[in-house]
């Protein structure tokens, strides 16, 4: 399934967050979105998945979702978003319970994705008993269980420590060829973007605009520090100044106006 973003803009009240984002994500492509803190990456992802209505522009889809797809647009969340009172299997099943599936089919799907993500031994564990890495594996298993057409990943690894992040990137890369799901991958981490993405979409500071879309031409298995070094430098130079400015920005008072983000 292809995803077409046409001139999307968004504002929260008076705060303009996104402006004229246009982008096409091809079937089976991974597009990484990078940009300084607060530039509207999460907002864009929320719009892509139909959770937020854009103030301007529209999103179109092209093509049919894959066979057995229960939820075309499926998220993987930065903070995992696991129900803490459900076991690993229960969390995966949560995504399936509201679809017309036989119990057997549901169990088959759960078992399959737990096996794929190496969680088979942890089916009965509660989230609190798992390390951060294992928790995000549950998040990924849950996403895969519904056979998504487009995966929307919002900094899926940023809550993990560097070593676990490394492990999960390797697993992603191993898992990928089997599913080839279209994906939009938001991250702050250039290395992550360069190792996973086909193209990297660089956003400007708020209001986020597309500054540049950089294709990563090296085939995934051949990407290593040495080969990506120049591309990495180029990207870093692109965003460096804006990252610095975003960092030095005073954080606004969080007014609890009753709306819970």
């Amino acid at each position, binding site marked *: 399934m292809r995803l077409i973003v046409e001139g999307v803009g968004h504002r929260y009240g008076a705060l303009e967050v996104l402006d004229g984002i246009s982008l096409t994500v091809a079937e089976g492509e991974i597009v990484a979105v990078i940009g300084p803190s607060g530039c509207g990456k999460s907002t864009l992802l*929320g719009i892509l*998945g139909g*959770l937020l209505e854009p103030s301007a522009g529209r999103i179109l889809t092209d093509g049919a979702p894959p066979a057995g797809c229960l*939820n075309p*647009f*499926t*998220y993987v*969340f930065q*903070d995992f*978003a696991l*129900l*803490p*009172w*459900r076991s690993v299997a229960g969390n995966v099943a*949560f*995504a399936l*319970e*509201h679809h017309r599936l036989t119990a057997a089919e549901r169990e088959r799907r759960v078992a399959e994705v737990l096996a794929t993500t190496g969680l088979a031994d942890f089916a009965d564990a*509660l*989230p*609190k008993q798992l390390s951060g890495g294992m928790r995000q594996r549950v998040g990924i298993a849950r996403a895969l269980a*519904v056979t998504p057409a487009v995966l929307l990943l919002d900094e899926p690894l940023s809550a993990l420590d560097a070593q676990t992040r490394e492990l999960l990137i390797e697993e992603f890369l191993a898992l990928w060829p089997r599913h080839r799901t279209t994906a939009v991958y938001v991250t702050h981490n250039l290395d992550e973007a360069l190792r996973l993405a086909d193209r990297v979409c660089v956003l400007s500071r708020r209001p986020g605009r597309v500054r540049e879309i950089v294709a990563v031409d090296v085939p995934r298995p051949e990407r290593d520090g040495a080969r990506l070094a120049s591309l990495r430098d180029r990207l870093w130079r692109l965003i460096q100044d804006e990252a610095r400015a975003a960092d030095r920005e005073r954080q606004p008072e969080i007014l609890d106006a*009753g709306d*819970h*983000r």
Partner: protein
Amino acid sequence: MMAPLRFRGGGFTIQPKRHTGWIAGLAVIAIWQGASSAGWVSPIFLPSPAGIAQALADMALSGQLWRHLAASLKRIVAGFVLGGSAGLAIGLALGLLSHVRAAGLPIISALFPIPKIALLPLFILWFGIGEPSKVATIALGVFFPMAIATYSGVDQVPRTLIRMAQSFDVPALAIVGKVILPGALPGILAGVRISASIGLVLVVAAEMIGAEFGVGAYILTAGNLMRTEDLLAGVCLLSVLGITVGFAVSAAERRLLGWRQ
């Protein structure tokens, strides 16, 4: 010029002391009993622990204890069930519906600080002198903290879990049942704990007006008759009742909220 490192940490941590609690408790009782036996404190002003124990034993043997306890418990339970379920329902509505929150919260905030015992004369007019007015007082006292605890429990459900459920197309009613209610449970149980102690205060207050049986009535009578042993025996009963309820809520928390952390 090698030098060993100076240690400068430690302190500011609470070490559990296994036996100190019991020893301190027993010591207090022993000193009190000693002072009473030695005649340093007049038994009218402060009866001895042995005297209180005797009064408790008499009460237990004569069957009065169960009669008073049963009368009080019946009222607490009835008031708790009534007020608690109403509080839960209103609290959920306050937590979920913007209009209900906007209309209801100011009214609840205005009524909450009113000591319910002040309304007892009115309740007697409305519900008569018998059980209904007592139960109504307790129910009203329980209602407010339960409603407030429930709605703030709903507020404390991580928004990301709700977004997650929406992103998997989970129907709204199922979100309430499977995400919001379990997520609000910690808040609700905290409300139960507070409400239980308020119920205890109110049963005493309510029984001070026109009740034949009940721990509150027993204490009032003992006070009127200047029987300080009996009075303190009744107070001990209340203390035990309170501690028991506290333990029950803790046990419920352990069972139902084992997923926390």
